[in-house]
């Protein structure tokens, strides 16, 4: 049976059909729907699926399950692997019990990310196999194959979809869920589970010795395909293989074609291509991982071969698309390029950037923060919806998960004398902010940390976390108190405010500003998108005749406030938070009975 599936849903199906026992991940676009689909599929086969506190935790949980004889997978976005890099590098030495799969979704063009790192480099760095799918169907097949490969070579395997695979849809063949497994058991084996230096030295040699065998096995993987035709060739990897295949078809040229989907690279196939052609173009998104290998092999196999790629044909940044690939091939062949259609009269179009929702409490918190700390204060921020508030003047930095607190500390220790008030979300705080807060307390950083607590992981689609009292599967669990955590980590002043109550929020920020140590303000109000879904009837507001057209409410930036004929007006997007009524200089905005 075939179904029209999102790439990430196809990957989840693959995990289910491969008999995965434990799946752990941290939300991050474009990877989040894998765990979400896994939760939906749980009824078909008993398994443990969790939102972990961060990616390092997720990979370690998956590794523990693998060492207990259960096939396990960890999911994350590319930058999440930076967080998980510590266990990742050493797991390659220690190996697996049952198959261990790391699913790391890359985001060329930074659709929803702070960088566009290429995880194939990470796999190469750790010395583990990497599977690079070009469409949802392939991603599903690879997820199944990855477990077999992992068990065969006693090594974790990476599956690396990109945004255009994770968030592509295609008709995919659906199979049966694997039969439920027997309970796992941890088998003690210090030489392979305890990374003492004496063990690690031996394991490193073993890891290096595996490389040739893995390469040999992957030469014949179904995703490494060589078709020798004319003496001009194309080598493409991942989704670039799809663009190249389409271009070769459309241009109707007799080109030799090597499509690569599995790493370590198939050196024999590449060598055969190089022996056959006089000119070859390497097409891959981001880093020249394949191209570098081709350059090395060409010196031995065919030093006269002309090798084209990143230099002048295929960009090293951003994502590729069909036209770009087609035109690069056409240019190599001396054929006409197809000019991309020019954008229409877009200059007359108003920009439509993503923005904080109407009634979002982050806007209210930032308004109060800015009012108290002033324009000269420094506002390190973090990763989440609130980064979109960069226009409010309260987002001076965004580096990586949790870095707001540590950057704020460093800015203070660097000698900055102005007020420093940083901000990060609840999920971000629990993911990577706690150690930074502990460090700030320990090293006496005089800063204010604002936790924008909307009680969910909003940006990635409202996943639960330890502060919500609910697991990924919707079960009730211990609800961790952020206040208690902040105190335990050493913050001197900890206050919780409802950002919809502007006066109390301003007072709290003032106390935090005056406090001679580390202060924490927890601004708590549920995400408006979640509140709307829960069908709570919002209050209604309108702008009365008293409006003097001062535009203070308009500058607040809520999409529910419009300006018409010199007066403000509240539109249908209003969620009834009432903050605009509190900031109105003429007391013209008031609640109306409904």
């Amino acid at each position, binding site marked *: 049976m075939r179904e029209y599936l999102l790439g990430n849903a196809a990957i989840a199906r693959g995990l289910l059909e491969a008999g995965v026992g434990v799946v752990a991940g941290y939300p991050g676009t474009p990877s989040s729907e894998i765990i979400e689909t896994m939760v939906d599929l749980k009824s078909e086969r008993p398994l443990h699926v969790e939102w972990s506190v961060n990616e390092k935790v997720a990979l370690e949980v998956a590794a523990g399950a693998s060492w207990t004889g259960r096939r396990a997978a960890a999911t994350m976005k590319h930058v999440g692997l930076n967080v998980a890099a510590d266990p990742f590098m050493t797991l390659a030495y220690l190996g697996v019990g049952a198959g261990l799969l790391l699913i790391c979704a890359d985001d060329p063009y930074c659709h*929803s990310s702070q960088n566009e790192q290429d995880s194939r480099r990470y796999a190469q760095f750790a010395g583990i196999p990497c599977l690079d799918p070009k469409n949802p169907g392939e991603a599903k097949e690879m997820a199944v194959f990855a477990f077999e490969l992992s068990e065969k070579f006693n090594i974790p395997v990476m599956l690396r979809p990109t945004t255009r695979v994770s968030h592509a849809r295609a*008709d995919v063949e659906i199979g049966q869920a694997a039969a439920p497994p027997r309970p796992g058991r941890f088998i003690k084996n210090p030489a392979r589970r305890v990374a003492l230096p004496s063990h690690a030295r031996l394991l490193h040699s073993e890891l290096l010795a595996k490389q040739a065998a893995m390469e040999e096995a992957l030469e014949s993987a179904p995703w490494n395909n060589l078709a020798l035709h004319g003496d001009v060739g194309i080598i493409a990897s991942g989704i670039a293989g799809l663009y190249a295949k389409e271009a070769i078809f459309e241009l109707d040229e007799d080109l030799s074609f090597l499509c690569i989907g599995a790493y370590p690279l198939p050196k024999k196939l590449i060598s055969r291509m190089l022996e056959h052609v006089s000119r070859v173009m390497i097409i891959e998104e981001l880093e020249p991982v394949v191209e570098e290998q081709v350059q090395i092999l060409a010196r031995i196999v065919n030093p006269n071969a002309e090798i084209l790629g990143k230099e002048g044909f295929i960009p090293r940044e951003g994502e590729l698309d069909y036209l770009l690939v087609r035109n690069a091939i056409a240019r190599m062949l001396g054929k006409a390029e197809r000019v991309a*259609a*020019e954008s229409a009269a877009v200059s007359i179009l108003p920009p439509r950037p993503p923005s904080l929702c109407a009634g979002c409490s982050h806007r209210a918190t930032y308004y109060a923060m800015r009012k108290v700390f002033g324009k000269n204060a420094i506002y390190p921020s973090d990763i989440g919806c609130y980064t979109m508030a960069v226009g409010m003047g309260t987002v001076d930095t965004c580096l990586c998960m949790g870095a707001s607190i540590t950057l704020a500390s460093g800015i203070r220790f660097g000698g900055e004398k102005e007020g420093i008030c940083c901000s990060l979300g609840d999920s971000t705080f629990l993911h990577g902010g706690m150690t930074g807060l502990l460090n700030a307390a320990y090293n006496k950083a005089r800063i204010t940390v604002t936790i924008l607590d909307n009680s969910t992981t909003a940006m990635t689609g409202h996943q639960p976390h330890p502060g919500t009292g609910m697991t990924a599967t919707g079960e009730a669990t211990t609800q961790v108190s952020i206040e208690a955590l902040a105190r335990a980590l050493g913050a001197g002043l900890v206050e919780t405010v409802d950002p919809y109550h502007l006066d109390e929020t301003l007072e709290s920020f003032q106390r935090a500003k005056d406090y001679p140590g580390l202060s924490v303000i927890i601004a708590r109000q549920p995400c408006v998108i979640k509140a709307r879904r829960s069908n709570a009837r919002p209050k209604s507001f309108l702008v009365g005749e008293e409006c003097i057209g001062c535009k203070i409410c308009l500058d607040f930036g809520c999409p529910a406030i419009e300006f018409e004929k010199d007066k403000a007006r509240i539109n249908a997007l209003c969620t009834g938070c009432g903050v605009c009524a509190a900031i109105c200089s003429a007391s013209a905005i008031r609640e109306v009975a409904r």
Partner: protein
Amino acid sequence: MRTSECDLVIVGVGGQGVILISDVIGRAAVMAGKPVCGAETHGMAQRGGSVINHTRIGCRFSPMVASGGADVLVALEPAEALRFAHFLSPTGVALVNTRPVLPSTVTCGRAEYPLLQEILAPLKARCGKLIAMDATALAEKAGIAVAMNVVMLGALAGHIPLSEELILQALSLVVPPKFLEANKKAFALGKAEVE
């Protein structure tokens, strides 16, 4: 040489239901035994931003429609139609809901929303056929304002190589049963509008 049977680009604003249209078409194509693929926007773009979806019926290649290659551009919002007009093939059909959704840049006075004619004229100049309709009003008429996307689906149905029967069958799989009749009515109103 064509690399797909029919290429669609569906655009709108986050929350308007762009993905539902593509999901219905994808499922209908699978029922028809045709290969189908697509690509969509998640994440940042969902917070009131522009949303674009590519859907390729009868295609085994890349999930994205090339610039200048769309047989049909379905726009749930007029400004978004023009924003993504470069995807239209010169012989393509532009199917546009004329009801604007004002972006925050307009409501807060930093930008102006153009007149409908300023949007439709350049659009018409670059495609084979322009069909503009107030799909939001038709959805309201069907008694289900949020089904504006289904009105547009109804208008689109005659332009794609899938039978109406399969499209309606797929629709019944993705909308809640208690809203199915209202959605079918919305579909019929959209279809009637282009006939």
